[in-house]
Structure formats: C-alpha cells, structure tokens
C-alpha cells in the first residue's frame, strides 16, 4: 500500500520537524544561559553610571566613560591602588616568558625521553607521572616559604618578584607538558633520525635541524595552552606577589572587587573585557587545534 507508506513517512517527517524546533528552542535557552554573563559584562562596561545597582542590559546611559577611567582620563575618578595597564603588561610579560622557558625545557627533555636510550629512563618517566599526582599548588605554604627564604639570599628571585613567580611556574611545567610533547615526538618516524645519523649529525643537531621543524604544530598548541594557563593563574600569583605594581591582571581584577565593588562595577567590567578579549580571540581562531590538544592533555586549569 504505497499511499499508507507515504502517510507514515510524512508523519515521521513531521515528528522530526517538531523535534528540531523543540531542540532549537532549547538551544536558544541554553545560549541565553551561556552568553548572558558575557553580555552583562559588555553592557556594564558601556554603562556610564558605573554602578552594579542600576545597570540594565541596554544601558540607559551608554558611553565609553568606563574605558576613559581605565585610561586614567577621567579626573573625577581616582584609581588609587588600581594600575590596570601595569597589571596587563605584567601578565603578558610573565605568561610569555614562562611559556618560552617552559617550552624549551620540556621539548629538550621530551626529545631525550623519546629518542635517547639510557639507564633509568622508564623509571624517571614513571617518577614524573607520580609527581604529577601532587600539583605544586597543594604545597602552597611551602612554596611561599621557599621563595621567601630564597629572597632572603637573592632578593631578585624572592617574594614579590616576577622572576620568583616564573621559577615556580617552571617547576610545574615539566610534569604538565612532557607527555604531550613526548607522545607527539614518538609519532615522528625514526627514519628521519637515521638519515641524520648517516650524515654524521650529533643528537643535538638531529633535534635542532630535523625534529624541531616537524614539532612546530604541537609546539604551537602547547605554547597557546601554556600561555592561557599562566595568564589565567590566580593562586600562585596572589600568594607570591604583594605589591600592587607587581600584580598580574587576574590578581589585580580581584582587587577591584575589594571594598565597594558595586561602585566600581563598570570600570571593572571594562577591564575584565579587555583582559578577556585576547584569550577569547585565540580560542575562536584556533578552536580546532586547542580542542585537539586539550582532549589529549589535561583539563583546563
């Protein structure tokens, strides 16, 4: 009965259409939940009243005065301890330096673990895995004391210095990224190394001239992830830095919330938006690479 079949098909089609419409409605609700805080932040940053209590989604009093305040261009608004641009540049500086250093350290180590053969290799890999189970933010008090003691000897790497903070980040980087790097290196055919060896290259020359160019894609992903991770770190930076001109952006933004948060809400939102923008852009342009790296590696930290 062809006619009956047709009816059945069209009823399935209708069912499908209803299901799609329901799912689209759900999607709108979910998107509202997902982006509302972001819209709220954007709207607050353009609300000249700078107040938490009166803000609405479409600001009645729209303008860029919060941004001018952030640029210290508003004589009626005193920042006091707020040094937004110093914090932002501190954050970028610290994240860039630690990313470059930690990438150097881990890539070299991953090369040795992947390509060289030596006694205790498996043992050391297991050791690193074991130590990874105890992330260094758990030993907060000890790390703080250690850096404070080191600062008693060499002030330049002690408490309240960016160098000290970067050193601590370095310590944690080995366990974090070595698996990603070594895993990728293991997939590069060893025939490449052999060709180098036949030409009489040293292991370092093989690493530098033959493998490093092939590592570029993974280096890029690890660098981005490591930059984002360091940029977003709060706890270690909060504990190790105590001078407002030394703060990173994340620590500085938290300082905004101290005291009369509701009276600084707009300026905070403007600062938060500028601080978030670079990371958001990185995510949107490099979504696929980052997602690939993430699912292999760790949870967002």
């Amino acid at each position, binding site marked *: 009965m062809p006619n009956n079949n047709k009816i059945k098909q069209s009823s399935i089609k209708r069912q499908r259409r209803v299901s*799609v419409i329901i799912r689209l409605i*759900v999607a709108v609700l*979910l*998107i509202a*939940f*997902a982006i509302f*805080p*972001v819209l*709220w*932040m954007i709207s*607050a940053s353009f609300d000249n009243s700078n107040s938490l*209590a009166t803000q609405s989604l479409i600001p009645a009093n729209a303008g860029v005065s919060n941004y001018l305040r952030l640029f210290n261009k508003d004589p009626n608004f005193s920042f006091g301890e707020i040094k937004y641009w110093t914090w932002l540049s501190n954050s970028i500086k610290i994240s860039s330096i630690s990313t470059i250093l930690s990438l150097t*350290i881990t890539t*070299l*180590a991953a090369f*040795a673990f992947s*390509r*060289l*053969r030596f006694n205790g*290799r498996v043992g050391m*890999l*297991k050791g690193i*895995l074991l*130590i*990874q*189970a*105890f992330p260094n933010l*758990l*030993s*907060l*008090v*000890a790390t*703080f*004391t*250690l850096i404070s*003691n*080191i600062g008693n000897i*060499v002030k330049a790497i002690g408490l309240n210095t960016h160098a000290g903070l970067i050193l601590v980040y370095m*310590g*944690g980087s*080995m366990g974090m990224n070595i698996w990603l790097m070594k895993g990728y290196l293991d997939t590069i055919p060893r*025939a490449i*190394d052999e060709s180098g*060896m036949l030409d009489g290259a040293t292991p370092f020359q*093989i690493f530098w001239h033959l493998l490093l160019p092939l590592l570029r894609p993974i280096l890029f992903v690890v660098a981005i992830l490591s930059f984002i991770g360091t940029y977003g770190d*709060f706890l270690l930076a909060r504990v190790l830095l105590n001078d407002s001109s030394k703060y990173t952006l*994340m620590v500085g*933004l*938290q300082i905004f*919330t101290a005291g009369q948060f509701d009276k600084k809400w707009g300026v*905070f*939102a403007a600062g938060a938006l500028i*601080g978030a923008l670079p*990371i*958001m852009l990185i995510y*949107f342009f490099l979504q696929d690479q980052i*997602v690939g790296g993430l*699912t292999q590696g760790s*949870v*967002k930290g």
Partner: protein
Amino acid sequence: MSIVDKPKVSNSVAESQVSKIIRMALLLVFNVGAIWFIYQASTKGFYQIAIVLGIIVVFFDIIFTLEKGYPFRYMAFGLAFMLIFVIYPIFFTTYIAFTNYGDGHLLTKEQALRQIEQETYLPAEGKSYTWTAYKSAEGNYALWLVDKTTGETLLAKPGEPIISAKPGDPGIGEIGTDGAPATIDGYAKLNKLLAASDKTLPNIKFGEEGVEGAKTVQVRSPNEAAELQIRYLYDKAADTLTDQETGRVYYDKEGVFTSTDGRTVSPGFRATVGWKNFKNFFTSPALKGPLIRILVWNFVFPLISVVSTFALGVSIAIMYNEEGFPLKKLIRTLLLIPYTIPSVITILIWRGMLNSEFGVINRILNSIIGTAPRWTTEPIWAQIAVLIVNLWLGFPYMMLISSGALQSIPSDIYEAATIDGASSWQKFRSITLPLLLVAVGPLLIASYVFNFNNFGLIYLFIGGGPAIVGASTNAGHTDILLSYIYKLAFESGGRGVQYGLASAISIVLFILVGTMTLLQYRFTNMWEEVSENA
C-alpha cells in the same frame, strides 16, 4: 608493541674542542654561583635549601662532565626545577606540618638569635661619660661626651657611628666654660636644667644600633651617660640564653626561649612540635567541627559539579550531534563561550550578578516572584550559587569531550538496536552512556580532581563564606581544603597566620588528591603504558 628494538639515536657525541671549553666554563660559573648560594643559605639557617641545591650541583657536575651523562643534559634544567619547586615543597610541607611555624615563630633559630643578640641594656655601673646635650631646629639631638677615666671627647648622634672629636674641629665650636663646645653646626646647646628635664633624651640611643661592634650610649642620669651592654649571651653548647642584667637563664622550649619561671624572650622561632598540629584537630571542637564540614563539602561539591556539567554537556552533544542540524556550528560556538574566557574574570562577573542586594539575578527574581535568596549569607544558597556558577563554567568542556567521544561510537550498534525495537531512552542507557563513560571516564576523574582543588571559584566568588559560627579559625560554609589552607596561611583575619596548621591540612590534601590521581592512572592504564610504549 614491537619486539624488535627501535632504531635509536646514538648517544656518543663528537664534540668540538670549542664547545667543550664553553660547556666547562659555564659549568664553572654555575658551580661558583651555586656554592656562594649554598654558603649564604647555610649561614642564614636555610639548611634544607642548601642541601637541595647541593644535590643539584653534584648532579650537574656529573652529567656535564661524564660522557655517560649526555642524555641527562637535555632534561637537567627541567628536573632541577622540578626538584626545587615541586618535590622539595612536598617534603618541606611535611616538615612544616610538624613545626609551630606561623605568627610568633616566623624566623629560623639563627635569625631569631641574631635579633636577640642585638638587644642591649643600660648597666647600673661600668664605663661612663659626662654629657652635654644639643638640639637641632628639627628636633634632632646630639651628645658631647667626655670619658670619665681617660678624658677622651666624643660626639654622638642617633643612628650614626660615635666619632672622637675635639673642640675646634670643623663644625665644632671652641670650648665653653662648662667644658663642652659652645656650638655644634646645626645644633644649639641645651642648658643643664633644660637637658635634665627633657623627657625624650633618656630614651634616645646614641650611636649605631644593631651593628656588630658598634658602641651605643644612653643617658643614665643628669651627670652620667653610659655605654649599653649586650643583654643576652647565647651558650651554644648548652643551648641557653643568659640575661646579663638579671642573670636569668632561658631554655629553648618549642621555639621560644623560656625561663624556668615562665618568662620568654621574643622573637620566637620555628621548632618542631611533633604531632601537635594534627592532634589539635581531634581535640579542639572549634577546629574539628569546621574541618569535618569542609571535608564533606570538598567531596560533595566536585561530585555534583561533575555530574551536573557532564549531564548538561552530554545532553547538548547528543541534541546537536546529528549531521545537518540547522545552525549546528553557530550553536556550538556560542555554547563554547563560557570556556573561552579566563575563569577568574567570569567568576568575578558572576559574583556581581549574584550580589544579594544589587545583583541582576536578584533584581529579576524580586520583580517576578517578589523574593530572592541571600546568596552570600545563607549557607545553603551560597553552596547552590557556587554549583550554578560551576555548571556555567564547566558544561562547555563536557560538551567538547562528549561530542568527540560520540563520533567514535560506531553507528551500526544503533541500527542493530533499532531493529530489536529499542526505544531512544533504552539506546541511550545501554549503548551511548556506557560507551561514553569508558571513553571520557578518565577525563571525568581529572575534572573531579580539578574541582576538588577549585580554589579560584570558591575564593573569588564568595571567599569560602559565609563563615561557620563557632569556628576558631577563618572557616566558611563553602570552603574547600585548599581555600581553607590559604586562609589559615595568608588571610587569618586577625587570628594570626598558622603555617604549621595549614601544612598539616595540606598533608591530608596530598593523600586525598594523590590517591584519586593514582586511581585515574590505574583506570586509564597510564602506568602500564609508560613501561610498554616508553
């Protein structure tokens, strides 16, 4: 797994003379720097740092000189950083947990002794001077001193070394009738009566203070000034301090020099106190109660977070998984937004939005239903708020990993189930969910561990509050162990920092987190993989 040995890069090195010389020169520089540091560390009493650095120096010297150490040169710096900033702090935490390190005991014994040994007293007798006082327009004092036995004349100012001076020297006038210079540059002479009645003068210490071997002089009576004496004498062999003025003897008692009649000398210093920090938790109800609450919440909060974010993430992944679903890409991109902003920022935005008085959420709730929860002051609502914010923060990650895993489930299983007449719910329960859990299980454990230590959320959103009533420490209803440790160590709220106590809790945290992570390794066969694929 191949049985045949993989081709490997030869470890033997053909190194040029030049690079060898550079390597040795760098190693020498490193050694000099490190040994200087070790020396400095040991004189300040940081023996542990000295030992750790010593180990690194030996390790570097071996691998950078011996041919056999070649492969280790690549990982030398990584391992060194790891040793200093990850491994050593683990042991150091354990050590601190057994000490009284904290307010009143912040210094090492060496540092404390150095401070104590600088303390002086004014002896009742001994070397003395006659004195004449001068005062500058700014209110600074100077003292002209004549040694009673030798007749030597001296000029003393606070904070400057005492110098020997004679009338007629540059800046010093000729001698007057009272035996003292009539003028001193910048200062005017005080007459005897004025000087004797001056109330600040007897409290001023003239000369450099706290500098070894420097003389300090203080006025004792209108006719006499005397040299201050070192107050405490430390006997290294007996480990006792003796007060030179009173003859009282002080013994080292858990980091404070204490006399038999209970007097103490400050500052105190770090000392081991055995299991005291741990015992405190079992014996003090003001500590025990809050800690148990925090522990329970520390397990519950990540559990609800993982379950709720995973449930929402999977639902989204399944709903919009189908090929050709309209606007699929746009929907996913928009839903990913919470994930793309540094969480510190969005947590603070949520903090503003959920403000009980002015926040937009409560303004909306008030206008619709006429009432709104006090998110920051009521424990249960604070906990719910934390969970809502974490759902927002966490669901996009779950969506990402589950849609990845969904792709890997072969579609013929579903076809077979459809033929067998399974409903959608049955298919989900007996095919999708089990296969999904196998694929993302390890990531769920990792997410649990991450949230177990989600300091940023708890601290930035609500500071661990609202406070637990009756707690002797700064503990709150949403505190997790890590935020509690932070507060004990760095934000005591006037109760005094307690590094020892904080470290004792860190040990508990080590054990819990370590166990969970090792469980994750077992679950994922990561441990075995290391040995097999290495």
